[in-house]
């Protein structure tokens, strides 16, 4: 395979992976916050004084969008897109693509489920405002798995884009 073409394919796959991670993460967060905000709106129509507490529960499903953003930025930085020296092998590019897609899926679904869990906690706080502390734990449990996905993404991107891999590829050509 032509060297330039191989790098082009690798670059394309890596950018697509970053796009999927941020796209799916942000879509999931949008939906999760949408679900929770419906419940918050209803509660606030009856008890406006609960706004401060409910805002925390409302914001929880929003973190997945940021995790997707971090994953994408990390791919851009580590692959050299930002510095203008983007040399990615097709194999590494494919790995980054699959990684971005997998992380994106994890973020997408966890954000939606967290939205559902937040809505349940909002119902709990609406009836028993004193249970706010415990109610935050429920959607926070869902967050654990989004954090796990982000950690895997950070480690995998670092390993995949270690500079020796790239130089080895160039030397082989």
């Amino acid at each position: 395979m032509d060297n330039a073409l191989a790098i082009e394919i690798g670059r394309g796959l890596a950018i697509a992976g970053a796009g999927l991670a941020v796209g799916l993460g942000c879509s999931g967060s949008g939906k999760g916050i949408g679900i929770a905000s419906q419940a918050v709106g209803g509660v606030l129509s009856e008890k406006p004084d609960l706004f401060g507490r409910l805002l925390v529960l409302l914001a929880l499903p929003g973190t997945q969008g940021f995790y997707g953003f971090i994953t994408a930025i990390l791919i851009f930085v580590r692959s050299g897109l930002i510095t203008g020296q983007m040399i990615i092998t097709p194999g590494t590019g494919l790995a980054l693509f699959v990684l971005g897609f997998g992380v994106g899926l994890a973020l997408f679904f966890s954000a939606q489920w967290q939205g559902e869990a937040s809505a349940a906690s909002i119902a709990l706080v609406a009836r028993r405002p004193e249970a706010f502390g415990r109610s935050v734990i429920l959607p926070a449990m869902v967050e654990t798995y989004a954090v796990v996905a982000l950690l895997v993404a950070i480690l995998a991107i670092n390993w995949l884009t270690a500079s020796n891999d790239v130089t080895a590829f160039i030397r082989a050509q």
Partner: protein
Amino acid sequence: MKALSKGQHRWGFVCGQISVLEGRLMSYDFFMTLGGIEKSEDVLHRLQETSLREFMVPGAETWEDWSTIIDSYVHSQIDELKKASPSPEITDVFLLNEDYVNLKRAINGKNALFPKNVFSESRLNEIASGNPALFPEIIRPSISAIANPAGAQSENPIITDIVLDGCYLRQYLWLISKLNCPLLKEWSECRVLSKLIVVLWRALKAGHNLKIYQQYLLPLEPFNHLISELCATTELRSWGNIIPGIIGDIWRECFEVSEDEQISKFEQKVSDFITQQVKQAKLQTMGPERVGAFCWGLNMEAFNLKLIVSGKLNGLPSNMLKDRIRQTYV
């Protein structure tokens, strides 16, 4: 246990409201306490500590005053939920009885008693002039049979009542079927079946010919065959072999109590059973089941309130009242 519908996020707003309103419902223990208070003034004083307070008016003393207060308390909450609901069917189910009172009055050339909901002013005016064209297809043929031109009194008020009962129950089931929720369907069928049994039971006790009921109540799917069988059986004891499921079990149980108590006990036990059933909806964060369950709970609260207030105003013994208090949603 019936499955609850899932992914009903558009019901989130109204269910958020319900999360708050549920906390204001009165508990069974509270009603038992009210039932045990001797003086009616003390009961009314205790009611000022509840959410009913906003609807109380100075000088309310008679049963009619309190009935109006409780009705407006229920109506205003259900009406508010209707405005916040993505589709109105489930709240309409609970406002339908008021609409049918208005409809009956319109057929007899009288003014509406309750706020208009399912049947608008124009529809009631149309029916008052003998034209049921604006009514839903599901009840229009039956309404046509009893609509009199220019508000003339109906020739046979019993038949008018039977036709309206049939239309009410038909529309009730029709509204629920539009929501496509197994729990609501099961609950509404229990309720309709129990209503039908009570109507026929009272008719039989009053010495009416049940063939008239078969003729004017039907069609009422899925109970057509059952009603025909009940109407053909004038021996009350045999009904126990005809009525199916849990309602049949309750009927047989209530048939064993003293004759004066049978129907009221049956109504109470069925309502307690439905309340237990709808409590399952508390597990749902968002969905029409939650709205329906809350409205049912509100209706049970209104029933208990009316029972206590009327009982205390009429000086009924506490034990008698406590025995009749129905299970509550919270």
